[in-house]
């Protein structure tokens, strides 16, 4: 076997690991909503945690964004976008829910 196809096999395995993790993190919240006897708040918390972890899994395994070996511009752009998003999205929710509370 050539080194090239060895590498290919290892990288296919890497994608399959990512897929298996993503699959688990999808099946768990769907199963909870379909059959779960848990309280609504508990279900929503688990759904949110699974979603956040799955986003990290996708970034890590499919987009190969790995903070330790990333070029610094890429990392800065991602962090900046996350910051802008957090300010705008959380700001929207804060302001609108505050208004709704006063109505």
């Amino acid at each position, binding site marked *: 076997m050539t080194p*090239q*196809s060895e*590498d*290919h096999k*290892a*990288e*296919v395995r*890497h*994608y*399959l690991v*990512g*897929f298996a993790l*993503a*699959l688990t993190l*999808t099946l768990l*919240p*769907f199963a*909870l*909503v*379909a059959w779960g006897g848990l309280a*609504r708040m508990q*279900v*929503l918390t688990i*759904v*949110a945690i*699974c*979603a956040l972890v*799955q*986003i990290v899994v*996708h*970034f890590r395994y*499919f*987009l*190969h*964004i790995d903070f330790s*070996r*990333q*070029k610094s*511009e*890429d990392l800065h*752009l*991602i962090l900046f*976008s996350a910051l*802008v*998003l957090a300010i*705008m*999205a*959380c700001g*929207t*929710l804060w302001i*609108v*829910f505050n208004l*709704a509370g006063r109505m």
Partner: protein
Amino acid sequence: MIFHERRHPGLNLGDHHGAAHAGAEASVFGFWVFLMSDLIIFGLMFATYVTMLGPMAQAGGPGPKDLFELTSAFIQTMLLLTSSLTFGMASLAMRHKRSQREMSLWLIVTLILGLAFLAFELRDFAGMFAVSAGPSRSGFLSAFFGLVPLHGLHVTAGCLWLLIMLIQMRTMGLTDVVKTRLLRLGLFWHFLDIIWIGIFSIVYLGGLA
């Protein structure tokens, strides 16, 4: 060490691709900048949707529990997730210079999964319109039809792009230009799957829990 010598987000071609790898940095990074701004658009659509979840915004019309179907959302999720894996397989086939036939095969499977996703999504929308739950029914439905079909539109664009790449691979062969276009399409495709995580978690699971 796998996936070494990285120059840009997403799968890198690697030094054994010579000029195609060296030249990919600027164009792929540029596309990544676009994706990050697209992410902000989606993020704000999500924020708008969440503010429209209350009973006031539903204006006496149907809510999430009356309209959404867990099975259909689950099928769409599986289709899109699997398509991410098959696109990854196509990218790996390109990176390791395996046969163009293998690569096209993975891309065709990806295209079929993408189209199946769109078919299920359109069926859902048609079902909603059938009970007159269109975007003009309430603020909640306006926000829903602003967010979910926006993602669907992106997937449609992705399918069209994929089709064009399949044609270009046949007519132009795997030239450097075609390779970097496929790298960018890969970023776009995986990015859409990440947005879908937000949609199924917030819109469908959040609405049905």
